[in-house]
């Protein structure tokens, strides 16, 4: 009997303790609607390096793709729907749903490309499929007229075949890469303009040999070694 009472009172005690603890934590959870935040030290920028390997899993597919001579794009028209090279291209075709910001509707063709019967062309592949509010930057064109004329000076886009240091050495990247860090999306596959289609897509580490050439910040001139005064 004593033993049984002991067991019962132990359980009663445990139960009370549980209720107490549970209530307490529930109350504090309600009272302080504050969840401590771990300090985020660095801002997550759009990294300038990540994109390069993005489509590398398709590299061998690119190698084996036959060239469709009849439906190739060329650089001649490539920049036509861009206000300057590096500007987001406008949408050259009709868009079904005006109320859609993009996302899947655009990505179903522009994530991996493919031949589109209607336009007799391969759809270009986006270098940034993770950004889904497509139409905040890419707008269709409803008219050819202008509100007023413009004197904006469109700078010439970089040419092909003139930006390597030595005969046969790898050309440098002559354009901005922000928002199009992923080389293969524009430089490989059937939608790539023929002049800039890479001959060796399987060597996915593009920027191992092709260094970029754009002055982002102030130039420091010829590189000088530091720590010269240190004794050897």
């Amino acid at each position: 009997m004593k033993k049984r009472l002991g067991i019962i009172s132990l359980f009663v005690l445990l139960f009370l303790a549980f209720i107490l603890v549970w209530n307490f934590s529930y109350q504090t959870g309600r009272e302080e609607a504050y969840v401590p935040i771990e300090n985020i030290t660095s801002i997550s920028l759009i990294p300038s390096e990540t994109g390069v390997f993005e489509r590398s899993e398709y590299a061998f597919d690119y190698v084996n793709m036959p060239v469709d001579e009849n439906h190739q794009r060329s650089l001649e028209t490539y920049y036509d729907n861009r206000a300057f090279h590096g500007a987001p291209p406008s949408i050259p075709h009709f868009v079904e749903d005006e109320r859609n910001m993009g996302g899947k509707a655009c990505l179903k063709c522009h994530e991996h490309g493919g031949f589109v019967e209607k336009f007799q062309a391969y759809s270009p592949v986006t270098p940034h499929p993770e950004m889904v509010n497509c139409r905040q930057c890419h707008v269709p064109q409803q008219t050819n007229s202008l509100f007023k004329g413009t004197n904006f000076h469109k700078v010439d886009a970089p040419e092909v075949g003139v930006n390597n240091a030595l005969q046969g050495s790898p050309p440098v990247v002559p354009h901005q890469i922000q928002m199009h860090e992923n080389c293969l999306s524009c430089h490989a596959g059937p939608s790539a303009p023929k002049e800039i289609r890479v001959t060796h897509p399987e060597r996915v580490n593009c920027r191992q040999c092709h260094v970029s050439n754009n002055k982002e910040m102030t130039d420091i001139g010829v590189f000088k070694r530091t720590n010269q005064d240190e004794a050897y």
Partner: protein
Amino acid sequence: MNKPLNMYTSLTNRRSFIKKMAIMSAMTAAASMFPGILFADEQERNLPKSGNLDWKKAPCRFCGVGCGVLVGIEAGKAVAVKGDPKSPVNKGLCCVKGYHSVLALYGKDRLTKPLVKKNGKYVETSMEEALDLVASKMKETIKDHGKDAVSIYGSGQWTIPDGYAASKLFKGCIGTNNVEANARLCMASAVTGFLTSFGIDEPMGCYEDIDHADVFVLWGNNMAEMHPVLFSRLLDQRLKRGVKIIDFATRTTRTSMAADKSILFLPQTDLAVANAICYEIINNGWANKSFYEKHCNFKKGLTNMGYGLEDNYAFKDKPEAISFEDYKAFLEDYTPEKVEKISGVSAKDIKYMAAYYGDPNKKVMSLWCMGMNQHSRGTWINNLVYNIHLLTGKISTPGNSPFSLTGQPSACGTVREVGTLTHKLPHGVVMNKAHREFAAKIWDVPVENIPAKPTYHTVEMFRALDRGDIRFMWIQVTNPMVTMPKLKRYRDGAKKEGRFIVVSDIYPTPTTDIADVILPSAMWIEREGLFGNSERRTQHFEQMVEPPGEAMSDTWQLVEVAKRMGYEKQFYYNEDSHVEEIYTEYRRHHDNKKHNMAPLEVLKSQPGAMWPYVDGKSTKWRFNAKYDPACSNGEDFHFYGKPDGKAIIWQRPYEPAAEEPDTEYPYWLNTGRVVEHWHTGSMTRRIPVLHKAMPHAYVELNPGDAKRLQIRTGDKVKLTTRRGEIILPASINQRGVPAPMQVFVPFFDENMLINDITLDSFCPISKEPDYKKCAVKVEKV
């Protein structure tokens, strides 16, 4: 490129080239091991010099988000734009307007010479002569009609030095409070909302809240089109962390389609829904008692305030303290079931929203812009949303943030902080003697110069121009002849005999059409300046290109006129260094822990800084002792804008709009913007890609209404209100879908001026007009 090999000019040294190759391969190896690794600075430093572009940083010219952009300059021309990856605002991304912003500098019809109206015709003249004329006309008007007959009207597109020079000249030197800005039409309710609830203007949180919040409630805010870069940050968080986005609006838009849940309410009933959410929070015991008891007071103000439709309308609120019990009793009228009947929002949806606000483990960010500000009870609805956050204690901590967005690049930086509104001074208000003395001392003017009484708010200022109480008006960087509600009255008024209008702008607009003198302005990167965005971030931009012809910055136009009027002593600035001199002088007004501004060297070296800038650090969360050095009460939170350090939870009822649909005018008329165009389109319509994307305005109808009226997309539709009529092409099931018996028209198109027929009712406290609601008749033509 013209000179193909010039990128190697600095690479004469083969060793350094090899070294760069070695670094590059190490970086690529590192990148393959750690995706996302950054060597930003080093990488850029080691790049070979290229002959192409020079990239310089600036805040974007357009909206109040204040994205950092890098502008590419070649041969003295701005030729390209990209997002600044170092900017914590946009992290390298822009919207279509931002990417094409530099094209706005190069429209063919840029104003390059001053024009003076002589016998009904505009005659070209020199800048010297035009400024002489402006100064002499202003002196003459003051002599004949008194100081309060001259006025200046600017906007949130004014840079900080522009607004400061305007305020100093008119309030300090001339001695009139006739200083107003377009921000009155856009941000005034947000300001009065902050002042009534917290006693100090501008958001407590910042954009970084987006990275912490779990739920986003958008109050009448089509962010996908109006603040696309911030919306992309929301979408990014949804991909990474699965946050919830709730679109609470009157119209189905791209935002509704992208949101996790879209809830539609009837116009004006957001007031009732906000109260219902508070009812649910209290009724379910979700309120954070220890927070509101320690940090909040309860108050009520006057009701049945009217709508300001009549000239010389005046209103002054009489706040009265109430108890929590009183407040709770008041909320009995706003049970979800009762509000369902007023608002058209189901009780279930109200409870759904309330549950997110009430859940102690969910961090909630409320976002809003014009839907709540351009509201005939704008101050109230701002108060009510703060109530929700104050009752639950979800405020001033990372991710818990009621956040009022802005529409203009420096609505905060210039209009609200410099104080270019009739009642404001850079620090404080004209009604306060100490504030006047403080400003007069820095301005170096006798304190008696600054009148103690505010004069006209924007709508009343244009009414005064119509009546003839104001005879001279100088309009800078804005386009009131497109944006004023009930526009026809104010356009006719401005054209009356005996009025003298000076307009400083960069292109011909409907506003330059009413001008007697047109001054060509230098815009954005054609001059040096500073903008302040919605998250209290002040950003500097240097002059990057030469302005066309005789175009001159608005600041320098004001300085030149001030000198001509005899205020050389106060306008001592040098042409080469005036921006720095003005900013340094301006900083003295805010020299305290609650509002300290970062020094110019700091702003030049980084993509902006957030005030209060104390001990070399931006303040991300105000009123929170952990982050804000101005908190001094020893508690976790200190709402130091109010004398007792407590924020106010306001009892504000639902009241109907000024004009609601009836049998004669059975539809609601709502106005707004589209993603392609900014404000009145005077810049964006001159950007070919944007104009081609959105060539003209239209009227959106609900498909059901359209079917009944036999209207198809493209058909001409006549809209008639008590103010007039206008014909627009119809748009059905396209960009947006209004609810049944509502129509929507964007206001950017100067050829289809929707504001000719809108109503000039305004919020009695903020005096901001309600562009979102009036009654209209819809007919097929």
